């Protein structure tokens, strides 16, 4: 088997590409290429043999099928040509109902009663009143918050300003059996070592 390092590589390459007319000479010296040449010639002979045509190919029915295919192609093409040749539809008038609406919906849209000016005035006043009420609520909430903050500040201010005296702590050791009257702490485990 030839490798890429073989000296005959260019000749093998020329042989494989089928360019050289003197490939037979190379194939005599190169076993790998000789095998390829045999295969190539065998394949060429097989490829030159056409497949046997079926009898259906020569039947009148086949010719009729060709004619049908011609008609079908023509109809297909003429439909496309007709579609392409037809002018675009004019745009619908602006005040016409949308053509995509269902008829019932289109009628409903067309027959919907229009609101008069008095009704719109009521709506406007209701909206303004609603907005005014919301503003009043926010204002009252702000006043209450300020008052509560001032009261809390007044209560805490004396505590902050009065100087604090250090608490006096008396330490006394007592028997566990008799609890003292004041605050006490119990030490367990004895004296730390």
């Amino acid at each position, binding site marked *: 088997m030839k490798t890429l390092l073989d000296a005959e590589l260019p000749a093998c390459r020329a042989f*494989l*590409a*089928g*360019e050289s007319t003197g490939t037979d000479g190379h194939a005599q010296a190169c076993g790998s290429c000789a*095998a*390829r040449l*045999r*295969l*190539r*010639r*065998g*394949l*060429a*002979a*097989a*490829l*030159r*043999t*056409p*497949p*046997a*045509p*079926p*009898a*259906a*190919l*020569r039947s009148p029915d*086949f*010719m009729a*099928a*060709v004619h049908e*295919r*011609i008609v*079908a*192609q*023509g109809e297909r*093409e003429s439909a496309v040509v007709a579609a392409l040749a037809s002018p675009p539809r004019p745009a619908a008038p602006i005040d016409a109902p949308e053509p995509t609406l269902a008829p019932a919906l289109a009628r409903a849209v067309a027959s919907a009663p229009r609101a008069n000016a008095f009704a719109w005035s009521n709506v406007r006043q209701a909206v303004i009143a609603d907005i005014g009420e919301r503003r009043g609520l926010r204002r009252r909430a702000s006043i209450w918050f300020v008052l509560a903050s001032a009261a809390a500040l007044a209560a805490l201010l004396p505590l902050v300003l009065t100087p604090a005296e250090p608490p006096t702590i008396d330490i006394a050791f007592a028997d566990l059996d008799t609890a003292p009257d004041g605050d006490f702490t119990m030490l367990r485990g004895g004296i730390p070592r």
Partner: protein
Amino acid sequence: MELLRDPDAELVAACRDPAADGFEAAFEQLFARYCDRVYAIAFRVVGNGVDALDVVQESFALLFRKLHTYRGGSLFSTWLFRIVVNCSIDHRRRRDGTGRIHALPLPSETDGDPVDDAPSPEDRASTAEVGDQVQEAIARLSPKLRAILALRYLEDMSYDQLAATLGLSLGTVKSRLARAHLALEAVVRAQFPHLEIDLAARRSAGDAG
């Protein structure tokens, strides 16, 4: 230098006018002249007889509709075979898109009227078997490689004729043909190793005969 006259020129001229009296006869004669060759090329590319018949119908229907565009700058056969190759490749792509499995040739396709000098049934069976295997090997290649092999060997086309038929440059024709040879050899060696022996045996028998 005398230009090569197209042997189909008169027939093609008669087929140009569908309203003329002799049109149908001329068209059928043109069909009869080329249907076997068209079928063979289509068979090589699409890989089975049923689809090849479909391609034949499609090709001749297209020929009928497009004949008025044929200007005569090349041989009519060159123009026709280009149609066949394009139809075959399109057909194959559509089939590949549907995932259809390509069948082997139908048994009826190898049926024919027996003649006196025909090979024996055993020889014919052997030939058909090898031919089927070669066709199976070809089916592993891409449609473009199959088409160039079909035109090269079935129609014995030169590089120039291949370039004209396929609409390629000479360089592309040479490289594509070389790729087709290498690819087919690789397929045969890898997937049909016994075919190499069968082909060699057939060649030896042919040389001896």
